[in-house]
């Protein structure tokens, strides 16, 4: 082995901080009888018709590569779906690419647009991968903070204040992980005028778009003038409970999708074929399952928001995703202290808000994608814990 000075590691990787989520995963995994509200994925198994369609494709011998950008039929369905649900028009020939999860779509989108030293604005609290993905693509992440006072919706002036001559793009995520916040059409329009004025691109992570409970979801790409400035990222993981299938997609301007396809072609070839066949069935006949799951998430959101407020943790009712982000400030504990002590004393795993960025401090993320029985028990345990602190 070489010593530290002569590490074999790439400096950009070496400088990345490991995610704070990892530590909690290790802690929680060593304990017994833990109820986890720390899981960032649906508790449902993939709808049976999707599983069955994937079986069938394997039986039929569809085990080879597909086109780099994905099965044409699937791109067609994605384009139809985006058009029908969000009123955005993309040509399946050259404006849609099927990827290995939405995560890969974000990665190749960033690599397709960033020159060394260019800045990408990342909103916190936000998904833990954005800033590292920007850094790995050779860019500089610039974080800005959405705050509890604004129900964790970023304000246009905050974006404007972070813009420099080097700014290339901003990553938006609505409905948001970890806060569940949903940007309304008006709020998106406000952001759009800043984007227009400063000639920026938007990477719009809309992976939770199907999971909105109070208002109709608006895609950033559907805002006037924004379709040419938006790389729309989505996928099958959250809406169709298909996280392990690793299937996502991006839709955007022709030249950007072509550049992303170039990276994809050299590094991945194509997304898994059997997963693409499953996804095809999900888009064609999966809507009923989505509606059922969505109803169940909404009921559980209502349940958890009520229970948290009753125990004395202030929690607004988020419009989407399957997370709530209550404040734990009145317990006098930091988010990490709260999460760690709760895990040790009551065996409930939550994720401390600070792992999602500075402004997440003082909050915890609880996922309600867990059976009602488990949620009920978890709320009872948390109430006991909070009572001892208040």
């Amino acid at each position: 082995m070489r010593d530290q000075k002569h590490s074999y590691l790439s400096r950009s990787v070496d400088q990345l901080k490991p995610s704070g989520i990892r530590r909690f995963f290790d802690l929680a995994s060593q304990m017994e009888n833990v109820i986890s509200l720390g899981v960032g994925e649906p508790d449902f198994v993939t709808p049976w018709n999707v599983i069955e369609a994937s079986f069938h494709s394997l039986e039929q011998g569809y085990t080879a590569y597909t086109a780099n950008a994905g099965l044409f039929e699937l791109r067609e369905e994605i384009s139809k779906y985006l058009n029908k649900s969000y009123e955005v028009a993309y040509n399946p020939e050259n404006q849609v690419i099927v990827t290995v999860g939405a995560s890969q779509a974000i990665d190749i989108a960033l690599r397709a647009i960033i020159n060394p030293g260019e800045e990408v604005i990342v909103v916190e609290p936000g998904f833990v991968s954005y800033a590292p993905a920007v850094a790995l693509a050779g860019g500089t992440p610039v974080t800005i903070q959405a705050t509890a006072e604004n129900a964790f919706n970023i304000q246009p002036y905050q974006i404007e204040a972070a813009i420099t001559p080097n700014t290339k793009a901003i990553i938006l995520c609505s409905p948001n992980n970890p806060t569940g916040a949903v940007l309304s059409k008006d709020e998106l329009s406000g952001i759009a005028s800043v984007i227009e004025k400063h000639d920026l691109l938007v990477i719009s992570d809309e992976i939770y778009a199907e999971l909105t409970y109070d208002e109709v979801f608006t895609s950033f790409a559907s805002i006037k003038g924004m379709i040419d400035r938006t790389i729309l990222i989505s996928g099958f993981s959250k809406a169709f409970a298909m996280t392990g299938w690793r299937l996502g997609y991006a839709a955007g301007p022709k030249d950007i999708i072509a550049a992303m396809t170039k990276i994809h072609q050299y590094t991945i070839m194509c997304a898994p074929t059997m997963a693409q066949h499953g996804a095809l069935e999900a888009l064609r006949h999966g809507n009923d399952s989505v509606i059922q799951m969505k109803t169940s998430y909404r009921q559980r959101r209502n349940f958890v928001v009520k229970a948290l407020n009753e125990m004395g943790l202030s929690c607004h009712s988020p419009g989407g995703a399957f997370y709530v982000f209550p404040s734990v400030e009145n317990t006098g504990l930091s988010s990490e202290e709260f999460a760690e002590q709760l895990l040790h004393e009551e065996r409930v795993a939550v994720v401390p808000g600070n792992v999602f960025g500075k402004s997440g401090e003082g909050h915890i993320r609880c996922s309600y994608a867990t059976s009602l029985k488990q949620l009920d028990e978890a709320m009872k345990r948390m109430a006991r814990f909070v009572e001892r602190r208040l």
Partner: protein
Amino acid sequence: MELLQLIEKNGRLEVEDLAKMLDLSVDATKQMIVKLETEGAILGYATVINWSKVLKYEGVTAMIDVKVTPTRGVGFDKVAERIYRFPEVKAVYLMSGAYDLSVSVEGKTMMEISRFVSEKLSALDTVISTTTHFVLKKYKHDGVIFDDQDDDDKRIMVSP
């Protein structure tokens, strides 16, 4: 509607929990349940039992296809009533297709069911013919899968 769907799946949900999920007050939820009970939308609260798991229990279920002559004026309703009044009859449906009534019967033994078919069902004037199918194994009943399912959470404990 949503309330009914929830308690159809789990009749033992607490009113307090139902209220939280539906974003209603406890009183409003209680009132709604009473109203649905009075109107006859909610007829009862049953338990789904996998009897094959119960030691010493022996029972047989049969599905019987019945062809009947409808009666002038009342159609199939009268003969259906003659059949569903028997306590061993668990379900009766009027069917489209090759036969008229589908009758589900439960008994302790095959003998008991064959006696019901020959002595009671076939003996009805309006019954033209019967075809009896015995159930060998229940896989799913009323939306509940009877197999020993492994419902362990297969997700990792904490993820982004």
